């Protein structure tokens, strides 16, 4: 066993997993509160990537891209704000009017929204892959056994640390604030929460905004980490993040993160040791297995069928 190689895959997997986890939180929160799969969430993540790329280009044009921390913060902030508005808008336009209507209607509306957003970006920004030069370069060499260097790049550190910080902030937000309480109330019983004075519409909107903000961070990380994005990245990432949410237990925030990390690790190790072509098959295979044997996920609670 080559431990260096193993360690490198572990690091890569955790980085990838952090990104999936951030997207998965959006799925989990929305599913928890209104019980629908926000199919357009992957597209929101893609928009986040584009927003951060364009912010960077603007910074570059304005000549401030040399000041790295400022550029990074601007990218983070602008992309979070603008992408959140898309999250809000999607809910407002495509889901809210269908709330309480026939179940499949909202899902199909979401699929329509996803196709729309994808093509919207394709037309307005072009179909070609958008490259971006690396911003955060360099890293630490953790281990060097002669034939293989184990690298932990600074970018990977940024991703993991930022993810941890966001996780802590959001967990506190949901556990401690009245907003979090309102969200949990709406999860339990929307009608009753409304009768007790919770502003249900606003709570649901906030949930979408929060999910979109996290997805936009994931989008920015991917832009920086891989250095290429296109209008189509949302689809696969979205499906995988949803898999992560299901794997962790839909409705559970830590579960989404755990699921994301697991999916990231599986993907990294599968590509590292087996065939890279079939890594997506591995993810979907896991989704199927989880849903068959443990549909409530690793950290979720089994749902009882009330008769």
């Amino acid at each position, binding site marked *: 066993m080559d431990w260096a190689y193993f360690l490198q895959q572990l690091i890569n997997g955790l980085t990838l997993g952090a990104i999936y986890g951030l997207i998965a939180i959006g799925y989990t929160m929305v599913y928890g509160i209104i019980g629908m799969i926000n199919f357009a969430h992957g597209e929101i993540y893609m928009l986040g990537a584009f927003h951060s790329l364009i912010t960077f280009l603007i910074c570059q044009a304005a000549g401030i891209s040399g000041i790295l921390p400022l550029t990074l913060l601007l990218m983070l902030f602008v992309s979070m704000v603008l992408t959140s*508005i898309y999250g809000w808008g999607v809910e407002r336009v495509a889901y809210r009017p269908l709330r309480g209507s026939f179940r499949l209607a909202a899902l199909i509306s979401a699929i329509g929204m996803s196709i729309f957003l994808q093509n919207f970006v394709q037309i307005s920004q072009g179909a070609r892959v958008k490259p971006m030069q690396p911003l955060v370069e360099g890293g630490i060499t953790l281990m060097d056994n002669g034939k293989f260097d184990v690298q932990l790049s600074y970018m990977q550190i940024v991703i993991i640390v930022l993810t941890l910080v966001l996780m802590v902030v959001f967990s506190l937000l949901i556990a401690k604030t009245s907003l979090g309480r309102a969200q949990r109330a709406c999860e339990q019983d929307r009608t009753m929460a409304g009768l007790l004075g919770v502003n249900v519409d606003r709570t649901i909107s906030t949930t979408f905004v929060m999910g979109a903000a996290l997805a936009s961070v994931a989008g920015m990380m991917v832009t920086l980490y891989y250095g290429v994005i296109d209008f189509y990245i949302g689809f696969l990432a979205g499906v995988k993040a949803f898999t992560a949410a299901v794997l962790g237990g839909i409705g559970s925030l830590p579960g989404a993160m755990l699921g994301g990390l697991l999916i990231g690790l599986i993907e990294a190790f599968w590509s590292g040791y087996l065939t890279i072509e079939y890594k997506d*098959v591995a993810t979907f295979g896991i989704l199927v297995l989880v849903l068959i044997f443990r549909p409530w996920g690793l950290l979720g609670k089994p749902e009882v069928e009330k008769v």
Partner: protein
Amino acid sequence: MASAFASSRTNGPEVVKELAFFAVIALMMSVMILGVETVDRPTGLELAVRWDLVLLAIGSTVVGRLGLIFRRENISRLGQAILITVSAVAVFEMFVRFRDMDDRWASPVFLDMAFSSVVSVIVSIAFLAIIFAAAYFSMKDKTAVEVDESAKLSSKIQLMYRSNTKKIGLIGIIFFIIFPFIFGEDRSAIDLATLVMIYIMLGWGLNIVVGLAGLLDLGYVAFYAVGAYSYALLSQNFDLSFWLCLPLAGIFAASFGIVLGFPVLRLRGDYLAIVTLGFGEIIRVVLINWYDLTGGPDGISSIERPSFFGMAEFSRRVPEGSIGFGELFGMDYSSMHRLIFLYYLILALALVTNFVTMRLRKLPIGRAWEALREDEIACRSLGINPTNTKLSAFAIGAMFGGFAGAFFATRQGFISPESFTFLESAVILAIVVLGGMGSQIGVVLAAIVMIGFPEMFRELAEYRMLIFGAGIVAIMLWRPRGLLSFRDPTILLNMSQKEKVAGEMK
């Protein structure tokens, strides 16, 4: 208009505030994605600014919102119609700019076009008049009498449609049968009709799964792919004829349906959707990567074309030992013969699908599908095996998908994984849902709308999917249950269909 505002709930400043809010939202949403274009240059990405698009986005949002406010505040039909016309022109404007990307600051495109020639003046005025009239007459008015009138009209149409579905279906079938006689020489018309018919067949197949059994399948294209590849591979490797492969392709697809369905059919609705989507992707990934068998991304080409039931060939140079189709019927060779034959073939396949579905609906299995869609727990309490019942729907739907796939392969002569993406599944699903789940005629209408129209407006190719996506959302908002979402009983005891429909209308 001032008087209209005075009588309403919202006052002026509030309206302005609301509009300002939406203007800011539109600004934020468009400022980067629309306002800034990333342009590839040899030196890397550069930016190009398009402020006019942002302004247009804001403008049309504000106008649209104003329209909603007018509607909410019950402002006169005239006002609403004017507003809708203005916003339609604004959207058009945005659309044209979006395409041409030139800097028309001073003069709106619409005016330019309108004044460029007499014909275009007339066209523009007609355009305005149609939008205006449509808006004016479709608006609900305050007066109760008129609402009554329009409700009566729509229920009359419904009554007519629902009590004559058989006749309407028959007229449709006759139309499709004589279609080649009308357009026989027009290659593109036959091609388009064949394409629409493939989607009608796929829609009918999926309708069994989604419409009748209520199982949301986002990976239907997988079965289409299985059908196509099984025909292509069987015919290339074992030299089997199309007529032998057609049933085999259906059987393969159905077995796939059973194998895939068995573990997942107990899942709740939207989980099932994601898993089926996953399966669709798995099959595509396998097709791409299993190079030795499937040719990978290059696909399989020169797939054998069907013969005339093994009796005659359609090609110009007939191989030894067989005769040409033209010869058989004493006609000259024409390349249209094969196209028309293919058209009739898919028509026949689609009609078989339809016939089987209609018949199954009235059998215990079909009723069990519908019952399962309504309430699975009640079904279990009545002794219906949910897994097997769902599985049968899945397998039968898959089988028709497989037939369609085999037809697709023989018609194209070439297949590759490109043709079997998730988007394809989404299109088929949209046809089913748009048509009205479970409605056979709805599927035909939706397939014509979704496949036929976009193919006719080829110039909009780039915008096709954009409009398609927006259209799905709009239709869902407008009619969450689809265009023709009536369920006709499978059996009646005391009354005729007509009486039943009339009774429901009351």
